[in-house]
């Protein structure tokens, strides 16, 4: 993989899609996916991620905008003339052809006569050499998935598009295939664009994730960046869990902003706030549940100075092995979630106990309070159901 080669760049400029019935699936968006990266489009169903993918594949015509592969504009090329291949949702393997012919399909259509060696090598890469003469329905879900990948990869596309490739697999197999796909991507060095609604899948596999919502990209970045520095409530809630508190800007001191929430004060580094911070303005203060420490009210004196703190009462606790998840009832936020690692368990921390929550201000992030505080929450619950 050379760094100067940009023929595998995917560049979307002002691309949008409005269907005949007036539904706008994708609002004008610009996006560049560099050569060789593993890129994920993450979002709930109906957010426009699959439509975006299909516009890159040529299966959907953009209403506005252009698609470039490297320096070549492909907006008006039909799918069979684009150097792009797709791994379809539920695979779309040809039921009337055996595995070998499924994999050889693309080569044969391009008039390549001697396909045997290539197909066999490719089947070897996905560990299906033995199954060449079986029909798709005779394979397990995981094997079918690998055939779909092999069938696309054998054509050495500039870009491989994956539409929910692991959606039909059970959890264990999904984990295994995530690693497998990552291995294959590293091996062949092709740009992968991966559409998924599974945040864990996106975070494990991709080096860049674009979170989509209602036809727009909410935020784009590395998995860690998205998780630690969400810019919108949607991202904060959709990726993992966030505790969001409504607060009012009080004063600024140095690089920090001091906020008032309930009766107490919270400190937020200005660099981690994506909202305007005029004194008296509202801001949503967020903190991830695992960043918070829990101390019984009797030991409140032992908490170090300079930490953000909130008082409350334990409403509920559930022990899940690695950690214990608490729901805290506090004046500033009715359902504050705290995940505490089970290192030393304090026997006093049971429902009803008065506690102090405290965390390092550096882990606080600030969001624009004009947004829906619950955006992205429903989607997560829907997926879990």
């Amino acid at each position, binding site marked *: 993989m050379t760094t100067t080669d940009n023929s595998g760049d995917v560049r979307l400029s002002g691309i949008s899609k409005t269907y005949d019935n007036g539904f706008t699936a994708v*609002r004008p968006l610009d996006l560049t996916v560099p050569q060789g990266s593993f*890129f994920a489009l993450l979002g709930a169903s109906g957010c426009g991620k699959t439509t975006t993918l299909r516009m890159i594949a040529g299966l959907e015509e953009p209403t506005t905008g252009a698609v470039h592969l490297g320096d070549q504009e492909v907006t008006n090329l039909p799918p069979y003339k684009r150097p792009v291949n797709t791994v379809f949702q539920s695979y779309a393997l040809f039921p009337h052809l055996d595995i070998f012919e499924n994999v050889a399909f693309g080569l044969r259509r391009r008039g390549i006569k001697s396909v045997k060696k290539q197909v066999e090598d490719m089947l070897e890469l996905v560990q299906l050499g033995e199954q060449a003469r079986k029909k798709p329905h005779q394979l397990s879900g995981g094997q079918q998935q690998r055939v779909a990948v092999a069938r696309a990869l054998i054509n050495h596309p500039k870009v491989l598009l994956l539409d929910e490739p692991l959606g039909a697999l059970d959890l264990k197999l999904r984990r295994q295939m995530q690693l497998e796909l990552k291995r294959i991507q590293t091996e062949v060095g092709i740009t992968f664009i991966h559409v998924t609604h599974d945040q864990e899948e996106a975070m494990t596999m991709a080096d860049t994730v674009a979170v989509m919502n209602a036809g727009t990209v909410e935020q784009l970045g590395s998995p860690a960046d998205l998780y630690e520095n969400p810019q919108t409530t949607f991202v904060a809630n959709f990726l993992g869990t966030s505790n969001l508190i409504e607060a009012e800007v009080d004063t600024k001191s140095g690089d920090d902003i001091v906020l008032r929430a309930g009766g107490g004060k919270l400190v937020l580094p200005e660099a981690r706030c994506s909202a305007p911070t005029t004194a008296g303005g509202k801001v949503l203060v967020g903190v991830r549940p695992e960043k918070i420490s829990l101390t019984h009210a009797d030991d409140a004196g032992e908490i170090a100075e300079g930490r953000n703190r909130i008082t409350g009462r334990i409403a509920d606790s559930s022990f899940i092995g690695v950690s214990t998840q608490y729901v805290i009832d506090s004046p500033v936020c009715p359902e504050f979630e705290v995940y505490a690692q089970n290192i030393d368990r304090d026997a006093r921390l049971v429902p009803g106990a008065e506690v102090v929550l405290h965390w390092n201000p550096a882990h606080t992030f600030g969001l624009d309070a004009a947004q829906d505080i619950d955006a992205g929450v429903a989607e997560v619950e829907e997926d879990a159901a």
Partner: protein
Amino acid sequence: MAAVTEAPPPLAPTAPEKKPPRKRGRMVPYWLLLPGILWLIVFFALPMIYQASTSVQTGSLEQGYKVTWHFATYWDALSEYWPQFLRSVLYAGAATVLCLLLGYPLAYLIAFRAGRWRNLIMILVIAPFFTSFLIRTLAWKTILADNGPVVHTLNSLHILDLTSWIGWTAGDRVLATPLAVVCGLTYNFLPFMILPLYTSLERIDGRLHEAAGDLYAKPFTTFRKVTFPLSMPGVVSGTLLTFIPAAGDYVNADLLGSTDTRMVGNVIQTQFLRILDYPTAAALSFILMAAILIMVTFYIRRSGTEDLV
């Protein structure tokens, strides 16, 4: 590495104006439809119009026919041939009910109880199709022969006395009676009942039976409350596929019946092919068509399966 922004209003050269949509074969469906639909218009729809016009013509074979809007033909045809119309409806109705009663258990058997025999039974249901139905109908002449075992058994069980009493048979005979005609109609159209029934029964998830059983339904209740309602599409299309051709049939009435069992199909056939009274024949077949269309529409509305077709 990657960058994203909301696209500004399309000023950037990379975001061109909306192009006219690619016209990838907008005319294709019309070309695909054209030959077949033309065929149906010319050889199905147009003949219907010709027939409608023939039915209001007067004249004779020698001098030719003219459209005179002579609607009296309809009235004359109805008043002369109402018994045949009535018979058609009665015989076809009886055959349809019999087909449902006989066909449902077999369809159920194939769908749920046949196991590895399923394919074989299916073949046995369909295979008779490949022997000309006229040959098979003629076989009923042998089966129902006056001195054959069937008539003998029915006679000794005094069943024939009963059917004679309600007018379905005459004396010790079955052949040349309404019973023979209904029997032949039932036989001929039974597969048209079984196949749609089977199709809709087969779609029923077997676990529904278990669920019904789990929820305190006895087997017959399960059938009444779960299986039968779910098989309604099959029942509706099966009864239609049986009733419509049976009502227009004249082969069974001719081969197995007598002059007293003539149905409207027999009259149309004779008027058209022997007596050559085209207006009457046209009027009769128009009335038959209208009657069936009305009944079918009403029936489909009532059974609430309009998405059937």
